[in-house]
């Protein structure tokens, strides 16, 4: 037997580690780019581009349509003034690109109508001991609850309310403290408990005056008198009187005639000056409002892009995209039961980690930095060429650069975290949820802890601040706005530092990792 020493097999050269990393990365790129799991990552990366593409196509089509109809000089559009008649505008500006007409109606109280309190005189006066109010349509809206705050009865020769504090009856109240007696207590200012209210059909309210009186006038205080919406005032009712409480005769019939519909005719003329669209709205033939704005607002679109990039791209697309790509690099091998293939090659485990991380990084950066640039290009595609030229001569190139850098660094940072998580944990949901929570509460954390967040650095790199509604709730503002933006150099170095720390942990984990498929 010839003893054999531990020498490399003939013909092999000791492979350089960089070459091994590249060989591993090249193999893994297939998994990162072409696995079934990768396709939803493409979806995430391309979604903003598709939205901006739709927006751009819509703007282009609209421009074509408006241009085909009429284009007016800009000064004519600027020369319009509120108060002008439609005829004057048409004479001066000519045929519009669009001419829409419509009318609107709104319910208003009839002139002279008493607000919320109706008074009903009868002629001739009637003799009555019992007076009954029958509700036919309880409100002006769909609400079927009748509400009367006070029902007053006045005689022919007496100024005082004959019904005040008299025994009352009526339909079952909707609440025990809102019985019929509340409509005769002389008050309408005590809120809801100072009214009579009923859901019952048919609703009636009756008072016994104690003796037969000659009555001449009734006053009804409706929901609006008690502080409720006037839409809840009684819309249709009648008043009946009786001497004996058995035979009633109707003396008042009231309907919603106290409200009338006010009709306004509107006309909107749309003019286009080649860049801006002017929407001139006329009410009853008079120019009431003029909205002139660019067909495409480049500044606004850039703001929208900034918002989409920070709120969707960085926080969701890159986050979940990296989760899908990087967690899969080792977890996927475990689930496929193929990890041993990699552990049996003559390479340090760290080399394997570097190769796989490199593959994930190439794939995710190509997908997301490429996706961000594509979205940026699509956003600019339909814009005015002059504005674009100005933008490119100014900050445009720097913006494109920093968006790309932020996307790439996002992949570097989130990639390292999810790679390490894939080595340390079995369930990807847990690290994803924890990291998302950590990133979200970043604004609440002490400054030192803020620096352990990927998003902290990424937001600092974004060239345009994301738009935020001033009246957005404070909690939303805290969650979405960067805590304390770092300088760009600080952000890049900080993020690379965090990444190095995470990768160091990943190296320790992979050195200790064992192949145990049965535990999966």
């Amino acid at each position, binding site marked *: *037997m*010839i*003893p*054999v*020493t*531990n*020498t*490399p*097999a*003939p*013909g*092999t*050269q*000791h*492979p*350089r580690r960089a*070459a*091994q990393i590249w*060989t*591993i990365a090249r*193999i893994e790129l*297939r*998994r990162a780019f072409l*696995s079934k799991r990768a396709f939803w990552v493409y979806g995430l990366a391309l979604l903003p581009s598709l939205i901006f593409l739709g927006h751009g196509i819509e703007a282009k089509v609209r421009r074509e349509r408006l241009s085909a109809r009429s284009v007016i000089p800009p000064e004519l559009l600027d020369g319009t003034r509120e108060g002008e008649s439609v005829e004057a505008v048409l004479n001066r500006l000519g045929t519009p690109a669009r001419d829409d007409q419509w009318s609107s109606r709104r319910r208003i109280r009839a002139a002279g109508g008493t607000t919320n309190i109706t008074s009903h005189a009868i002629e001739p006066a009637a003799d009555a001991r019992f007076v009954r109010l029958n509700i036919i349509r309880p409100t002006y809206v769909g609400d079927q609850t009748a509400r009367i705050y006070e029902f007053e009865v006045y005689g022919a020769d007496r100024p005082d309310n004959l019904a005040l504090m008299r025994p009352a009856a009526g339909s079952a109240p909707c609440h025990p403290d809102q019985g019929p007696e509340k409509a005769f207590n002389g008050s309408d200012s005590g809120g809801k408990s100072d009214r009579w209210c009923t859901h019952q059909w048919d609703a009636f309210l009756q008072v016994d005056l104690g003796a037969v009186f000659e009555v001449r006038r009734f006053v009804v205080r409706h929901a609006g008198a008690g502080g409720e919406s006037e839409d809840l005032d009684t819309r249709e009712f009648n008043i009946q009187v009786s001497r004996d409480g058995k035979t009633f005769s109707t003396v008042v019939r009231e309907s919603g005639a106290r409200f009338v519909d006010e009709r306004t005719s509107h006309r909107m003329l749309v003019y286009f000056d080649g860049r801006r669209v002017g929407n001139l709205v006329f009410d009853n033939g008079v120019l009431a409002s003029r909205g002139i704005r660019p067909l495409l607002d480049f500044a606004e679109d850039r703001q929208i892009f900034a918002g989409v990039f920070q709120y969707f791209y960085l926080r969701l697309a890159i986050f979940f995209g990296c989760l899908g790509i990087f967690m899969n690099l080792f977890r996927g*091998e475990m689930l*496929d*039961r*193929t990890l*041993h*293939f990699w*552990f*049996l*090659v*003559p*390479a*340090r*485990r760290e*080399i394997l980690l570097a190769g796989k991380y490199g593959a994930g990084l190439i794939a995710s950066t190509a997908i997301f930095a490429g996706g961000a640039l594509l979205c940026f290009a699509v956003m600019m595609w339909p814009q005015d060429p002059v504005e674009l030229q100005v933008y490119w001569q100014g900050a445009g190139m720097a913006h494109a650069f920093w968006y790309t850098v932020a996307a790439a660094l996002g992949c570097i940072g989130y990639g390292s975290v999810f790679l390490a998580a894939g080595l340390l944990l079995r369930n990807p949901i847990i690290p994803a949820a924890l990291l998302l929570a950590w990133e979200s509460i970043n604004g609440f954390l002490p400054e030192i802890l803020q620096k352990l967040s990927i998003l902290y650095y990424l937001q600092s790199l974004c060239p345009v601040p994301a738009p935020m509604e001033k009246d957005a709730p404070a909690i939303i503002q805290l969650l979405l706005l960067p805590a304390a933006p770092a300088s760009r150099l600080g952000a890049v170095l900080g993020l690379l530092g965090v990444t190095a720390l995470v990768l160091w942990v990943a190296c320790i984990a992979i*050195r*200790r990792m*064992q*192949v*145990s*498929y049965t535990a999966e």
Partner: protein
Amino acid sequence: MSVPAVVFDEVSKFYGEVLGVNRVTLNIPPGITALVGPNGSGKTTLMNLMTGLIHPDHGSIRMRGISPRDPEHLMRITGYATQYDSAPRWATGFSFVTTGLLLFGYGRAEAEEKAWKALERLSLTEAAHRKVAAYSKGMRQRVRLAQATAHDPELLVLDEPLNGLDPLVRAETIALFRTWAAEGRHVILSSHVLQEVDVLSDQVILIANGMVVAEGEIRNVREEIHEHPSQFIIRCRDASRVASLLFGEDHVTEIKLNDDQSGLLVMTRNRERFSRALSRIALNGHGIDGVIPADENVDALYEYLISGK
């Protein structure tokens, strides 16, 4: 120059509460070594420990002087055909073997040439460009073997390597193992086909319940088993006369005569005295045609040491 060995020193491995192997101490010289034991005895655990797929909880391992925690150096001289049946999804038979070789540092042309040779050796050239995932069980076994052997390793670890091989390939593979063993390489294999192990291996390691029951050359191991008498088959012309002479020896415990009176099975507690007694009988003119040990094989060892018969 010392012969490089595979050395386990008090190695234990637990899977949580479950014992994998316990206090295993081994010194495996080059040659073909078979790991023999029932299912779950710890054979695959030992192999995974040798190749660094798992790490011991206690003890240390040196594979021809290299720690399994150093795959960069260990795997350059090692090939391991595992029992894990899956291959990466992207892999065809050819790319599976070639990729491994590229990571060894071979140039592409050389890697492809070696991969092709390995596949040829295992009769896989026709299926070389098909996805491994579409291979039959036997083909997957062969491609794993091809990958483990493509780089001519000095240390070959093979988990049930001959499963699924057709007789011709099996014979060629066994011949290859023998050649490598003769060159001073390690071929460590596990098999549950005891006859195969018997024919193939220079030494055996018997494992039961995570512990090494015996290790060494089969004959030496057999000699260490005192509680079971050694069995010999004697071929002779006058079997009953030879039997009566042997009955006079106090170390002989049992004799069974063949029906045709041309042979007998002798059980003895002392192999040396039996040998001397047989020599005397032959010298006295009783024709002895041949003597064959009947239980110097893995089957018998397995039966005595593991099955407990």
